[in-house]
């Protein structure tokens, strides 16, 4: 409890320095009554409806309403947040709708919905562009992201897809840290029928990348895809390692990596913004792959990420199978959001 934490030195220094009101802690305990037992029940009941689709909820919201008032917009705000669009994007969207409302551009629910879709679409498609791997040979794709988002799986799917397109693909197992990461990529390589350059666990990832680049050139590969160990973007040393790996690539193959693909998990909330920001700063991300859209998560945060950092979403992952990769289609994505 807070009042206990205010130890004596805390108090002492407050006295000594006269900064009593800086902290949020307090001297005297505030009377705290025990929470009533009904809280969970109430929450549970309230939450049981969250499965309803966004469009259903907007329809309910607008049912019978010929005019859209401020209350409606406020409820809309809630709906958008629940779809993980994030607080600031939601506020932004609502403001825009409010202005349209003031200008009498929104007469009914249908108009509101169309305007909302349009606004989201413009944000997500501003920088949309498919990945063109024909601009270099070998075209080097470096895949990065936090732990468990689906990097290796996405690489496996990409390898299968490009191979099916008749391209010669090579994979490099740059995750030398996580237990059995190289084995995992190896299995994906076998599924896709492509070779995998790998070293032992614990080896220097730069060395793997170096060998991968050499092999890609020697074997005349069209595409080299580099797997990396998952890392939280807040770990400075691991982020530095990414820079080093990039330098090695650039030395071996001019312009490499040609694409730095940041993998984001659709279930991720606001933290995706922090991930994108820091990965972009350190590793110059050029595109996004959004995975696990086959679950119930909508991946709404990608709207903010794409918009804020000007990053195109290249691919979406819709399952664990080798074929479960799609090109990103902004219009389809927005439809699915609702």
């Amino acid at each position, binding site marked *: 409890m807070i009042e206990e934490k205010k130890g004596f030195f805390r108090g002492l220094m407050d006295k000594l*320095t006269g900064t009593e009101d800086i902290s*949020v802690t*307090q001297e005297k305990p505030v009377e705290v009554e025990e929470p009533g037992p009904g809280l969970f029940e109430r929450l549970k009941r309230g939450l049981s409806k969250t499965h309803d689709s966004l469009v259903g909820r907007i329809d309910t919201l607008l049912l019978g309403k010929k005019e859209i008032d401020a209350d409606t917009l406020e409820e809309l705000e809630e709906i958008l947040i629940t779809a993980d669009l994030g607080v600031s994007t939601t506020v932004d969207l609502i403001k825009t709708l409010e202005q349209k409302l003031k200008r009498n551009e929104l007469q009914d629910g249908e108009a509101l919905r169309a305007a909302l879709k349009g606004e989201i679409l413009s944000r997500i498609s501003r920088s949309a562009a498919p990945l063109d791997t024909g601009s270099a040979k070998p075209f080097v794709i470096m895949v990065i992201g936090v732990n468990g988002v689906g990097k290796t799986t996405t690489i496996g799917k990409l390898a299968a897809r490009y191979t099916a397109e008749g391209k010669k693909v090579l994979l490099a197992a740059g995750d030398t840290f996580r*237990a059995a990461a190289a*084995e995992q990529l190896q299995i994906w390589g076998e599924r896709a029928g492509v070779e995998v350059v790998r070293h032992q666990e614990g080896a220097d990832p730069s060395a793997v990348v170096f060998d991968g680049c050499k092999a890609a050139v020697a074997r005349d590969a069209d595409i080299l895809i580099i797997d990396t160990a998952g890392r939280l973007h807040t770990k400075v040393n691991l982020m530095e390692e990414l820079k080093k790996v990039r330098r090695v690539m650039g030395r071996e193959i001019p312009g490499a990596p040609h694409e730095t693909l940041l993998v984001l998990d659709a279930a*991720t909330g606001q933290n995706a913004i922090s991930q994108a920001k820091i990965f972009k700063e350190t590793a110059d991300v050029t595109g996004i792959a959004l995975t696990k859209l086959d679950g119930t998560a909508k991946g709404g945060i990608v709207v903010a990420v794409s918009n804020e950092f000007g990053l195109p979403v290249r691919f979406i992952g819709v399952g664990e199978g080798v074929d479960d990769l799609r090109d990103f289609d902004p219009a389809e994505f927005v439809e699915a959001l609702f």
Partner: protein
Amino acid sequence: MFDALSEKLDLVFKKLRGQGTLTEENIKEALREVRLALLEADVNFKVVKDFVERVRERAVGTQVLQSLTPGQQVVKIVHDELVALMGGGEDNSLDLAAKPPVSILMVGLQGAGKTTTCGKLASWLKGQRRNPLLVPADVYRPAAIEQLKTLGRQLSLPVYESRADQDPVDICREALRHADLNGYDTVIFDTAGRHQIDDFLMEELARIKAAVEPREILFVADAMTGQEAVNVASGFNDRLDISGVVLTKLDGDAKGGAALSIRAVTGKLVKFVGLGEKLDALQVFHPDRLVSRILGMGDVLTLVEKAQATFDVKEAERLQQKLKKSQFDLEDFRSQLQQFKKLGSIESIMGMIPGMGKAMKQLQGAQPSEKELKRVEAIIDSMTPSERADHAVINGSRRLRIAKGSGTTVQEVNMLLKRFTEAQKMMKQLQKLGPKGLMRGMGGLGKGMLPF
């Protein structure tokens, strides 16, 4: 990116200075900030809504205590309510009270961190003098079995020999029998990641549950999860009746509000948190720490622990003696300063301390630094032992001498002495707390010690 809630609330309440009671009207804006802070922390929308309503009910009519600002009062209420929601005070220890071998089933979405957590948990159990067996039952993800086997090798812990062409339910059933025959007392089952709407795979989990009758079913959740956490958690809980939650990847900068959502929909307690990729990076969950994190109060308790570890016990005992006799003097105070320095540079501790952001702004770039602490130390250094033992003897000419000797001013010396006198009074309160209180006091040192 996000300012601490407490700072925002202080701004909100700036206009309300002098108001003695929290009213519906004057806390409106504050509650809006609370709501935003929780949403930005990924707490589910509906959970937030109910929660804010509850805080409103609690807050309206509350007298603002004299020692508090209204902002502090609201944060206090929010904090306490959140801790209560997260099960503060409830027993969240692992329940292994059953006839061995006791089964623990790990479940969750793909990529949540189940396999790594299995390794960490086994290692933790070993530390509790248990004899765990790890069982890989993820036959779907490529090399998942190999991953757990590798972890077992790294930890020198046994891993059951399963193969990807076996049925997961068979693996688990046979592994349990194997554990029974070979004297393992705890069995940890690693299962494949799955979506809660995947009927086939959820059914598989239900069958594993029936086969091994786990004492604990731990739902492993990524701290970065967004609004969907409620649906995922309730999906798993409805089907399996989970017994607890492990929150992973809390070593990043995610606020971890998903934990609140999960707790709210399932009623189940978080038992552990994962704080890194290393196999010892598993900790028992403390609700107040997560709450502080969500509210942007800094990881106060982590700091407290760090302080406690640094503080040497003998010194604590010596002080305790002195305190009993009400003899705490400037000499002791100086030794506190030195203890504090052991904690590391002030700058490195800054981030852990609540309210620092605001303090920094107030100082407008004047770096709060070790320098200021050094001045205080220098003043005390320039005193004679007898002056330190009893500061009452320090008259005007002595003050001048001390100021000169320490390269400070008489005003600074005066200020220090005046405040030290006040502080001494407070120490009497501390005596009532006993040794534990003293250690806590040392912890408080960390955040209170900073003269800015």
